[in-house]
Each structure stands twice: as structure tokens, then as C-alpha cells.
């Protein structure tokens, strides 16, 4: 009875806000471009095998280091050139989108879930639970993340799941801190009091009453986070700590490009980098826009 009107209000504001979001986004233009790029990347990742003109691992030793637009075997074209083993750069780029997006999104799901749960517990219960979780977070942040990732990946061995795990665990603190702060302010609010008075269980209060009300700002963090995770993944792949060599990634393509740099095989170095920058930039632009949109203070000022 008591939380009924609350729910009603929440759903109408959500409806109008999503329409308002769409309108604001169209006005801002940049975020629309970012969204288009991301959709294109997602399509490349999902339909890579259909879109790619070649098997990304198919070597063609007669057509090594072909220039972009050069003729490939049997009347085909290496649109973006071929690499040192005669593999098609475009096809490898399309397959590389899979790893970047999959690792990016899976890692923030892992990190986000751990962080949100930790933040909810920390903020709701306070006391030693709060202390323990927050101090653990402090310790982790005091350790340069890339070094932590290197150490664990060297020992655990490379592989996509280890990569996701390490990159995911690296992100939880950010979520935990924000969720904790929001939970702290929400737990004294009337509608939480009401749920408590109605005899809802603690689990229900935390996950059904508080959680839905703190999700919005998390989308901003998540957007920036995917960007930084994709950058870290590229760096780790570049160091040879990413997925196995048989899986093409943007980072490992760049690592391979180093050997042919002096011979001026620029396309091997330029295209994978452009792919990374466009993807990361899009997530950053989207995050920026979302933050301005969700924070009314900033919106009023502009």
C-alpha cells in the first residue's frame, strides 16, 4: 500500500526521462555518432564470421605484407592489407572486435556485480562490514592496477576467462564506493523505513527497495569503465598476456606490427589502433553525455 504510489511515480519519471534522454541525445549530436560507432562495432563482433572476407588465421605466404587495396588470392581484395604471415588485416580487425567488446562488457559485469553487492552491504550495515570492505578497496587502489594484473596473469596463464576475471576484479572498488554513498543516504529515507515497517526481509530491502534506486549513476561509471577496460585489455594483449595467439585481438595485432614498423608497413599499426580509439572514444563520449544528462546541476548550468 505504502510503496505503491512510490512505484507509480518511479515508472512515470523513468518513461519521460527515457524519451527526454533520446531527445537530448539527438540535440547533442556527438553521443549519436558514438552510439552509431558502437553499434557498428557490436555488429562486427556479432557477425564477424559472416562479414569477414577471409578466415582471420588463414596464412598466405605468397601475399605477405600486401598494401591496403592490394589484390588477394582468387580475385579477392585485401582492403586493409595483409600482415607478415599474409593474413587479411580487415578480417582480423573484425574478429578483434569480439575480444575487446566481450572482455570489456564481461569484465565490468564481474566488477560491477562484486562492487554493487559490496557497496550495498557496506552502506546498509555500516560498522565493521563497512570498514572491512572499504579498507580492502583502499589497499587495492594503492596498488597500480596494471602491475597487479601482470602478476596474476603471468602465474594464472593467459586466456580470455582469466583476463575477464582479473580485469573485472580490478574494477569493483569504484562501484562499491558510489553504491555505498548512495545506500547510506537512501537507507534513512521514508520509503525504506516503510518497507522495513511492512516487515520486508533485509535482503528484500537491499535488493528490491534500495538497488533499483541507485542504478542510474552506475550506467555512467559502467560506460567509462568499459572504455578503460578495453584500454587495459589492449595493453595486456600487447604485452602478450591476453588471449592465446590464435585469437586475433587489436592489442596483439599492434604488438606484431612493431617488427615491420621500420619497413614502413604503416597499415599494420594504424588500423588496429584506430579501431581501439574509436571504440574507447565512443564509450567515453557516451559516459560524458550520460553524466551531464543525469546530473541536473550540470544540466542547468549549460
Amino acid at each position, binding site marked *: 500500500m505504502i510503496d505503491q504510489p512510490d512505484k507509480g511515480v518511479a515508472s512515470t519519471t523513468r518513461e519521460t526521462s527515457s524519451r527526454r534522454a533520446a531527445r537530448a541525445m539527438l540535440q547533442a549530436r556527438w553521443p549519436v555518432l558514438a552510439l552509431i560507432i558502437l553499434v557498428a562495432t557490436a555488429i562486427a563482433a556479432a557477425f564477424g564470421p559472416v562479414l569477414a572476407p577471409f578466415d582471420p588465421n588463414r596464412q598466405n605466404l605468397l601475399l605477405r605484407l600486401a598494401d591496403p587495396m592490394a589484390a588477394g588470392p582468387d580475385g579477392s581484395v585485401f582492403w586493409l592489407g595483409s600482415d607478415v604471415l599474409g593474413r587479411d588485416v580487415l578480417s582480423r580487425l573484425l574478429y578483434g572486435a569480439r575480444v575487446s567488446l566481450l572482455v570489456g562488457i564481461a569484465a565490468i559485469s564481474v566488477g560491477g556485480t562484486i562492487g554493487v553487492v559490496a557497496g550495498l552491504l557496506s552502506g546498509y550495515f555500516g560498522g565493521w562490514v563497512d570498514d572491512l570492505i572499504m579498507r580492502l578497496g583502499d589497499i587495492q587502489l594503492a596498488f597500480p592496477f596494471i602491475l597487479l594484473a*601482470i*602478476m596474476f596473469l603471468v602465474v594464472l596463464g593467459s586466456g580470455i576467462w582469466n583476463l575477464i576475471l582479473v580485469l573485472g576484479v580490478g574494477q569493483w572498488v569504484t562501484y562499491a564506493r558510489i553504491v555505498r554513498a548512495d545506500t547510506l543516504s537512501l537507507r534513512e529515507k521514508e520509503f525504506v523505513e516503510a518497507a522495513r515497517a511492512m516487515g520486508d526481509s533485509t535482503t528484500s530491502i537491499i535488493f528490491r527497495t534500495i538497488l533499483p534506486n541507485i542504478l542510474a549513476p552506475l550506467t555512467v561509471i559502467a560506460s567509462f569503465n568499459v572504455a578503460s577496460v578495453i584500454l587495459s585489455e589492449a595493453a595486456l594483449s600487447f604485452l602478450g598476456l591476453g588471449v592465446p595467439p590464435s585469437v586475433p585481438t587489436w592489442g596483439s595485432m599492434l604488438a606484431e606490427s612493431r617488427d615491420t614498423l621500420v619497413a614502413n608497413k604503416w597499415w599494420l599499426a594504424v588500423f588496429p589502433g584506430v579501431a581501439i580509439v574509436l571504440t574507447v572514444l565512443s564509450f567515453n563520449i557516451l559516459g560524458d553525455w550520460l553524466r551531464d544528462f543525469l546530473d541536473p546541476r550540470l544540466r542547468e548550468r549549460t
Partner: protein
Amino acid sequence: MGSYILRRLLQSIIVIIGVTLVSFLALQAGGDPTYLFVSERASLEEIEATRRALGFDRPLHEQYLSFVGNLAQGDFGQSLSYRQPAIEIVLEALPATIELTFFAMVIALFLAIPLGILAAINRGTGWDGSITTLAMFGQSIPSFWLGIMMILFFGLYMRLFPISGHVPFLAPLIAGEFATALGNLPRTIFHLILPGIAVGAYSLARNTRLVRSSLLEVLEQDYVRTARSKGLPEMRVLIHHALRNAWLPVVTIVGLEFGFLLGGVVVVETVFSYPGVGRLLFAAINQRDIPLVQAGVVLLAGIFIFLNLLVDLIYIRLDPRMKLAEGRG
């Protein structure tokens, strides 16, 4: 204030214990760590002998204590590929890395401040637009790719800068050869320009945005409006009233900055064949030289923690509010 410093020191000690615990557990994470130290063709006897020699047959807590004991004495074990103490190899490469990190830091801070101010006072104009757009790009470019692109353009195409190598400055300085150090300095800097920009670009971009938004916020405060309505020249308002308060958030992140920079250093050194700890780590990773990886990682993390502590202690001297809060509490 004393109690704050004490608490901060205690926190650093806990963090250092955390670092040792993590680097110890990392070894155990993949199962029996003995296999990390023997070749793939080692016989059972060899494996057993190595296990006993390295103490992996003992209980975990004993292993951890002796691990920490060894670390305290700077003993990270023998490097598997160099056959010499891992810490010696890392320490030899450290001055080059410090030079690069420091140079990148200078770029990240000293360019960010004027750029951020320029964007803030010209808010909404073309200046602001181009600076913020560039900063957005700067935060989206992988440092190592920026390095590769600069090698291609400034190194190989324009032939303006060297694309690899390093001229030592700190190493001769430490050895007391001042003349050599000073004589090297111009060439040291010349070799640092490309890798320094590559490492510093991300931080430069972030700091520029931070200076801009921090200054914009301060410029809207009442005391700035008061200063303006008194008829003070805009330059004076900016320098005496606004900047003084705008740069505090910048100082806060300087410590954390090193973490980002170190991350960049590890990869960028590899790109430029720059003989620092990063390139050493890269080689050690590929040869699975665990003691060397550990020595490099723990040493860099230790430096990072120390610098963070230092920055925090400087910060409480800079921000009078901190003293006040401590005095009351």
C-alpha cells in the same frame, strides 16, 4: 594533525602488507608454484629438489613469513634467465624508468595547467572546444599506440626524434660523475620526448579536464564574484582568488597519477626499446621469469605507495582546512 599522519602511516604499512600478500598469493594462484621455477623437461627428482630448495613443501603461513623476511632484506630470489639476484637487475634498470616517469609527469602537469586555464576562461569558445575535444581523444588513445604512431611520424617520416634508446642521466649522477650526467642531459631529454609524451598523454588529458572543471567551479563562487564587483582586473581575480583554490583537486590526484603513469611506462618502454623496468618486465613475462616479474612489480608498487604517502602529507600542509579539521577533532 599528528594523529592524521600516524593514521596515514599505519594505512601505508597495511597496504604494503597487502602488496606482499597479493604477490605471494599470485604465486600460489596457479597451483603448485614449483612448476613455475623448473624447465618443462625437468625430471621428478629435479622438481622435488627445487620444491624443497625453494621451501614450497612447507606450510603456507611459514612460506609467507619467509617470503616477507626475504623481501625485507631485498631478496627476491635468483632471476631464472639472468642467473643473478632479481633485485640487482631491477635496480639497474630503475633510474631509466624514474627518468621517464618523471618526464611524463612534468608533461602531464605543466601542460595541463595552462591548457585547462585557457579552456576555462574561454568557456564555450573555439579554444574551449578544441582543448576539450583533444582531451577527450587523449583519454581514449592507448599509450603504446600513440608511441607507435609517433615513431612512424616523428621518427621514421620526419626523422626529428630518435625512436629508441636512452642516454643515462640519473645513473652517472648517482655514481657521482656529475660532469658526465650534465653532459648527457640534453641528449637524455631528447630521447625522452617521444616516450614521455606517449606515457603522459592520458594523464595530460585528464588533468586538463580537471583543471578546467575545477576552475569553472571556483569562478562561480561568491568570493570570485565579490572580487570582480570590487573592480579588480580579471587577471588578478584569476591568479589571486580563483587559481589558489582551483589547484587543490589537482594536487590530490598527483599521487594517484603515478599509478597511471607506471602502467603506461611498462608498455611504452617496450615500444621504444627503452631500457627500463618496464621492458625488463616484458622480457621477464615472456620468459616466465617469475622472480624477476615479482621484483619489478613489488618495487614499482612500493615506490607508488611511498609517493602517495608523500603527496598526502604535502597536501595537509597545503590545505588549511585539513589543519583546522584536525585541530577540532
